[in-house]
């Protein structure tokens, strides 16, 4: 093999991914050309010959038994092809388990279609298949559903009352999870000491309203039986294709290898699509039964009332502080309303266990006691939603800091500074080791930004005019890259963590990378390609990412918990390195030198270090590896493919941020307007700056939504109140301000690229910062708000009750 001469000598062969030309740059996104031209393929864009359409008959009472479903009129509707009840489909239940004793966890089963009991309004009870979605809905309307109503459990109070109706027989008292994860011996002494030693004890009760992650694309599936491949093909917008395959195969009682799950383009997920839904299983069963493709697309009313929900939590937090404002003990009781069922694979433990494990947040808490419960209620079940419990426990901790500051007469930022973790690694009372971050630095920068911009001055000046402006902060960390160790600690029986990647080079020297992660807006096609392109020294156009196919991907956990760049990005890096090594071995052989004397040249080739003019392009090497394999070294296999896996050891890696918010309250309506939003964040090495900014801003928008607008509410009988976008208030561009995002960079020591995750920080920090800002605006009223969403009515009532000097300003526009 004659090496071809090249021009300039190539750069430093000790290849450093970070010094490459792709990582760190906001390159044009690979996803954009098709998405901008309407050529994306989302699940509802898929049409198969002979395809039928499914719709679900759903319960209209929140709690009932002796379910009776009469589909005779349904089957007579013109265009209806079939209709099924639970008995007719005979599917196995979806069961999610924790490896915990009965006193800590009550396993419950979620039937695919309700059989005898109804546990939430909107629960699917029958499946109608028709020629088109219009007729499917006609069929649904004709169904007659009856049951004996039972009193509904719609709140923590009713669920935990002594003679409460039981949602699940297996969970007496409606407790699905009850874990006291920590109880260090110094807690009570610390509270006693605080009471007597000039410190203080603060108690804060925070509540967050039930929310809907509400991706703009609703859930959906196209299922079809492929007789030639002897396989059920399930095309669905899921964040967890391999979990869907497992749960579906189990429920249908078929071998897993006869189920293939593929994922088209996805219109967002935010966690609502990282659990296995009942509907995709029912639809797959129908497709198999009818031997025709069946499509189901969730409509918006279903998405608002019967899809997975999140975030309904109540914290009773007590904290002891010494006279200098340092926290000496934390004692928390958390109750999470997890709705009617445990979701798969995370279980109803997902929210309370995360809260328990991580509540001390970014502060040095020496003593800690926590009890967390998941309660069952007659509401649509809870699934993880971006941030999971962190928006809530951060809100609780940030309110505690504010309250302590007031009690002790200290500046609330100073109280934070006295408690922030500043030396790393730091192993907390919760047994978690925090890797280096910039908790203090981000706070300093955020505060400096607001001061330099004059917001503190404005707050004072405006106050004299009767304008109520408030400034609020939140400091927090975001655990990302949860590996299997971290999930195993929760005692989940299904333990996510690793990712496996294969990098395969074709005969032309271009590369296809697989990842078990699952892009749904995070730009993986671009960011993971950037990483691989830098590792191998290829042009970005030469790298293609493949995800979302249980046939192509050996195994994957999908995308959630901000794992994709940390774990997925590391796996692709290691696989790329392995392939790079193989390329070097082959090139060394062909260039007749030692492998230590060749290097990737950063431009699609391999050079001899001692004579860089001697170069082989990847295409040259690939040609040999595939088409002239007799020229390969004896111990090297033909073709060019390498597989590697990555898992995060220990406790994961922590991003962090400080949010600083300025709000103004309208004295005539109670409306809260955000005047300024500053985010100073640290997610380690940034692969694509605009993508990270986008994740921050999008997350913050959802956090603001939770703080001020969105709530799923129920009537006393369990009927959901908001069945349309008129009632469920997703913020528009008029409600979300421009947000300044600044970056610090503390590289992660154990991910391949030094990156930490960045997907959830925005949602985690925003509610606390907005709540603190509103409370600051109301500081003259004596009223403190500890619940979200904040209603203008509540703000107005507080403003109106304040001293009379405000009266004259109340009609100013």
């Amino acid at each position: 093999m004659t090496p071809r001469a090249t021009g300039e000598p190539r750069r430093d062969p000790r290849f450093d991914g970070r010094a490459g030309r792709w990582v760190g740059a906001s390159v044009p996104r690979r996803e954009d050309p098709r998405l901008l031209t309407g050529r994306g393929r989302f699940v509802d864009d898929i049409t198969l010959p002979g395809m039928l359409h499914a719709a679900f008959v759903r319960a209209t009472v929140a709690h009932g038994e002796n379910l009776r479903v009469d589909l005779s009129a349904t089957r007579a509707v013109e265009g209806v092809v079939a209709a099924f009840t639970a008995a007719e489909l005979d599917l196995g239940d979806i069961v999610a388990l924790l490896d915990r004793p009965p006193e800590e966890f009550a396993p419950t089963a979620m039937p695919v279609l309700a059989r005898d009991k109804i546990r939430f309004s909107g629960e699917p009870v029958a499946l109608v298949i028709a020629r088109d979605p219009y007729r499917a809905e006609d069929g649904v309307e004709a169904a007659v559903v009856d049951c004996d109503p039972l009193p509904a459990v719609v709140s923590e109070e009713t669920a935990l009352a002594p003679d409460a109706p039981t949602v699940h027989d297996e969970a007496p008292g409606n407790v699905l999870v009850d874990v006291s994860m920590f109880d260090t011996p110094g807690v009570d002494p610390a509270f006693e000491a605080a009471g007597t030693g000039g410190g203080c004890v603060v108690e804060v009760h925070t509540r967050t309203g039930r929310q809907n992650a509400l991706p703009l694309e609703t859930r959906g599936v196209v299922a079809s039986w492929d007789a030639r491949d002897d396989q059920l093909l399930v095309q669905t917008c899921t964040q967890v294709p391999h979990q869907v395959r497992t749960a579906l195969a189990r429920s249908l009682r078929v071998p897993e290898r006869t189920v293939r799950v593929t994922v088209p383009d996805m219109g967002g997920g935010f966690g609502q699509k990282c659990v296995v839904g009942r509907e995709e299983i029912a639809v797959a069963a129908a497709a198999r039964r009818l031997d025709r493709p069946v499509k189901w697309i969730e409509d918006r009313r279903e998405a608002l009332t019967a899809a997975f929900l999140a975030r309904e939590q109540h914290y009773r937090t007590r904290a002891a502080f010494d006279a200098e404002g340092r926290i000496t003990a934390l004692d928390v009781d958390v109750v999470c309303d997890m709705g009617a069922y445990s979701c798969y694979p995370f279980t109803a433990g997902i929210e309370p266990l995360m809260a328990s494990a991580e509540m001390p947040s970014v502060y040095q808490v020496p003593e800690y006691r926590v009890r967390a419960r998941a309660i069952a209620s007659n509401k649509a079940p809870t699934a993880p939603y971006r941030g999971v419990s962190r928006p809530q426990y951060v809100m609780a901790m940030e309110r505690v800091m504010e309250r302590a500051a007031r009690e002790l007469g200290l500046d609330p930022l100073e109280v934070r500074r006295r408690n922030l973790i500043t030396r790393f690694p730091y192993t907390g009372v919760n047994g978690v080791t925090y890797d280096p971050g910039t908790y203090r630095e981000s706070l300093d920068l955020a505060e400096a930004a607001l001061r330099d911009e004059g917001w503190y001055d404005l707050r004072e000046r405006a106050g004299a005019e009767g304008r109520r402006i408030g400034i609020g902060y939140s400091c927090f960390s975001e655990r990302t890259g949860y590996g299997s160790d971290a999930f195993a600690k929760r005692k989940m029986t299904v333990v996510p963590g690793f990712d496996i990647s294969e990098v395969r080079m074709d005969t032309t020297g271009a590369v296809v990378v697989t990842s078990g992660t699952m892009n749904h807006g995070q730009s993986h096609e671009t960011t993971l390609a950037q990483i691989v392109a830098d590792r191998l020294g290829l042009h970005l156009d030469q790298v293609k990412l493949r995800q979302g196919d249980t046939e192509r991907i050996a195994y994957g956990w999908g995308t959630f918990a901000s794992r994709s760049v940390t774990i997925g990005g590391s796996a692709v890096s290691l696989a790329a390195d392995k392939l790079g090594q193989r390329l070097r071995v082959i090139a060394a052989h062909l260039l007749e030198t030692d492998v230590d004397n060749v290097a990737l040249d950063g431009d699609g080739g391999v050079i001899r270090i001692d004579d860089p003019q001697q170069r082989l392009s990847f295409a040259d090497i690939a040609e040999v590896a595939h088409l002239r394999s007799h020229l390969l070294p004896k111990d090297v296999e033909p073709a060019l493919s390498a597989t590697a896996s990555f898992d995060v050891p220990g406790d994961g890696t922590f991003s962090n941020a400080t949010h600083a918010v300025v709000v103004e309250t309208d004295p005539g309506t109670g409306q809260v307007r955000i005047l300024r939003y500053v985010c100073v964040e640290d997610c380690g090495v940034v692969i694509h700056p605009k993508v990270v900014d986008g994740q921050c801003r999008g997350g913050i928008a959802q956090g603001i939504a939770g703080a001020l607008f969105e709530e799923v509410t129920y009537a006393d009988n369990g009927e959901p109140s908001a069945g349309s976008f008129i009632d469920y208030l997703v913020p528009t561009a008029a409600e979300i301000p421009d947000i300044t995002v600044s970056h610090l960079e503390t590289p992660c020591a154990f991910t391949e690229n030094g990156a930490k995750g960045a997907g959830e920080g925005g949602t985690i920090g925003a509610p606390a910062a907005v709540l603190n800002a509103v409370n600051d605006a109301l500081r003259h009223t004596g009223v403190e708000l500890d619940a979200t969403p904040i209603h203008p009515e509540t703000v107005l009532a507080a403003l109106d009750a304040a001293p009379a000097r405000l009266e004259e300003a109340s009609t100013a526009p």
Partner: protein
Amino acid sequence: MSDKHLIELTVNGTGHEVLVEPRRTLLDVLRHDLGLTGTHTGCEHGVCGACTVLVDGEPVRACLVFAVQAETADVRTVESLGRDGELSDLQQAFAEHHGLQCGFCTPGFLMLAEGFLAQRPDADRAEIREAVSANLCRCTGYQTIVDAVAATATRRRCQSAPQEETTP
């Protein structure tokens, strides 16, 4: 009672004959009868705007139009933007400013912006933000969408008045 109607729709400059029942929305006809799946279904009650198309040049929610009502109208969808495989200036701006993440809401915003800028080429950022508030996005937080539309408005104004100073 719900007989089918044979209607002729003009979509992206091309005439199409479709046989539809009256209740079939323009959105469903575009997506499933004409195969123009770029326009997306988000709520079917006129709030999210993912289904926004241009009808006689004005931005309209296709979920709130029955196909039979659109027979004499000139309908334009996202597939009509750009030319010969090249992105339009607006599409380019969305790409440059990272105005899309999952892309589901994007066609609706593109058509909204096209319709809006045609009527208000001199719109400033505040007015653009108000116009953009007509549609929902769950991924971006809207700022980069506003950036993209504002940049396009500026670019177009500069192009139509080349003698003037361009603002950076």
